[in-house]
């Protein structure tokens, strides 16, 4: 790994709703090195998908409030949907959550891929050979191009989507919960394929979003943990898993069932309480209400600071 490829600073994104703005991302800042696979974990609703979408395509309800994103030194015009077009798919690519079930059922896979390529200004014939080579790499024959999505298993569909989203060798791939609906053996195969794509240079860096930290730890170089719209910890996978500094990360890890643990022997506990509402998020540390270590100072917001070399945390007690 060398150099910084992605640099996100103070990124703040809201969703407009009838009841007011949902503060889905607030002052998010982090960097990724060239070639890095960063696992992004956090509870449902913590802003993982919102972060992924913000880096590539904001939908009409999203509002870019402030902050910047630089990819390989160049600023991405994330607030301007038209200006983002040349970057999408060529430089930044996203495999959205539930994309597997979103494949158009009436189109054969091959036709769908061709249409998609054309819409991105790429002549299908020019990448045909590479497409077949990569399908072969993930264990799919060219035959799948003639099939309809319903005729493929979940794991096969997921592999098609992966090959398609990385066909133009993007600098950054965001893979949002791409294996959550798969069984354990297919999940493993798909996750390992993504690592292989990185090793072969099909993608320079990847944000791998998942709610499963054990899975993320199998393939990621670094892990970033989000809570209620903010990163609370980032470090090497090793450091985050074995030496978590933020109380939320610690509780998240201790609520994991390991193979062999049974309820009768040891009742595991989830994290009591629930995350704060984001329509009107509380001031200070957003984890305060559920944090066993909370003290007076926590009514001020803890900054996301480097607590150890390459290890960041946002907690007054983590320093």
């Amino acid at each position, binding site marked *: 790994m060398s150099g910084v490829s992605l640099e996100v600073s103070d990124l703040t994104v809201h969703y407009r709703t009838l009841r007011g703005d949902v503060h889905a991302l607030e002052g998010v800042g982090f960097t990724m090195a060239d070639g890095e696979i960063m696992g992004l974990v956090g509870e449902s609703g913590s802003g993982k998908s919102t972060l992924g979408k913000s880096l590539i395509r904001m939908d009409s309800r999203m509002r870019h409030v402030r902050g910047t994103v630089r990819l390989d030194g160049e600023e991405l015009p994330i607030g301007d949907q038209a200006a983002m077009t040349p970057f999408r798919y060529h430089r930044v690519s996203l495999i959205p959550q539930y994309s597997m079930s979103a494949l158009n059922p009436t189109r054969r896979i091959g036709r769908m891929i061709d249409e998609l390529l054309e819409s991105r200004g790429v002549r299908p014939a020019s990448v045909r050979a590479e497409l077949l080579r990569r399908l072969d790499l993930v264990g799919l024959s060219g035959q799948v191009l003639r099939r309809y999505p319903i005729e493929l298993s979940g794991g096969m569909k997921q592999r098609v989507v992966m090959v398609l989203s990385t066909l133009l060798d993007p600098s950054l791939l965001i893979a949002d919960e791409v294996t959550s609906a798969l069984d354990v053996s297919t999940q493993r195969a798909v996750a390992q394929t993504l690592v292989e794509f990185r090793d072969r240079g099909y993608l320079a860096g990847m944000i791998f979003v998942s709610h499963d930290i054990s899975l993320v730890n199998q393939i990621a170089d670094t892990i970033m943990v989000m809570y209620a719209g903010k990163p609370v910890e980032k470090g090497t996978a090793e450091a985050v898993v074995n030496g978590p500094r933020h109380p939320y990360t610690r509780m998240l890890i201790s609520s994991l069932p390991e193979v062999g643990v049974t309820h009768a022997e040891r009742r595991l506990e989830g*994290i009591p309480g629930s995350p704060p509402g984001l329509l009107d998020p509380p001031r200070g540390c957003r984890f305060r209400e559920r944090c066993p270590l909370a003290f007076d100072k926590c009514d001020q917001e803890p900054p996301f600071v480097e607590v150890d070399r390459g290890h960041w945390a946002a907690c007054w007690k983590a320093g």
Partner: protein
Amino acid sequence: MLRLDRVSKVYRVGSFGRERLHAVRDVGFEVRSGQVVALIGESGSGKSTIGKMVLGLTSITGGAITFEGTDVAGLRGHRAHKEYYRRVQGVFQDPFSSFNPVFPADRVFALIRAEYFPEVGEAEWRRRIEESLRVVRLDPAQVLGKYPHQLSGGQLQRILIARALLLDIRLLVADEVISMLDASTRIDVLNLLADLKARGMGILFVTHDLSLGNYVSDTAVILRRGAIAESGPADRVFTNPLHPYTRRLLSSVPRLHRTWAQADAELPADDGGCPVHGRAGAGDGSATLVEVEAGHFVGCAGDGEGGPCRPDPRA
């Protein structure tokens, strides 16, 4: 309580339904009161099909399913089904699909009331809902009146379980209820299943995740291409897996402090081939299960379609 006897299911697929797909083959097991039976297998192995047959949502091609002595296939008419669903309910993987987005989520309770408890008064019904929500650890004030998109997947999942609880059911079919939930919510839902089991409920817990299958289960049934590959007391199946398929599934479970490569290294290098026929590879996969230790059964490693059971690296 629930008994499956040599249950099979054949779907007609392809154009004009000319092809047959054997989704479930000769499956037999029992769920007793106060017991959690985990039904585990890869995607497409027939888990949901079994769940749907138990819930009377799809027909049974062969064999029999009985619940407290009643033949499920023999249920006829609205009245018989209504009585059955008073005692048996299902909760499915994608909680969002069970809610109509244009109505508040708690409408699912009103539907139960209209169907089963029209005579119960407003105040009493409200009390029952709140009690049921508390059992699933939801704060009534936080969820009542909210629309589905305003609630998280975990909250919706628990609302569906609370709905089932209003009926005082005896058997719950939980199909992949936790696979889309994050770790801490998963544990809440699993602990809830354990509490229900302690109250005497029988639970058929369908999952593809073995690390969670073990946490609350008494019995594990490992399904492979529609047939049982291995079954027995959950702790035995998990600590002493005999079928190569079970071993491969277990080694694929992502574990926090162990890499996949380390898990592979712990797999026996030479597992002696087929757990039933050894290295001879003489079996054709159709053989019945063999009892290896008390209550722990294992089947032939063949493909179940007449192929030999020669050791297959992908099992």
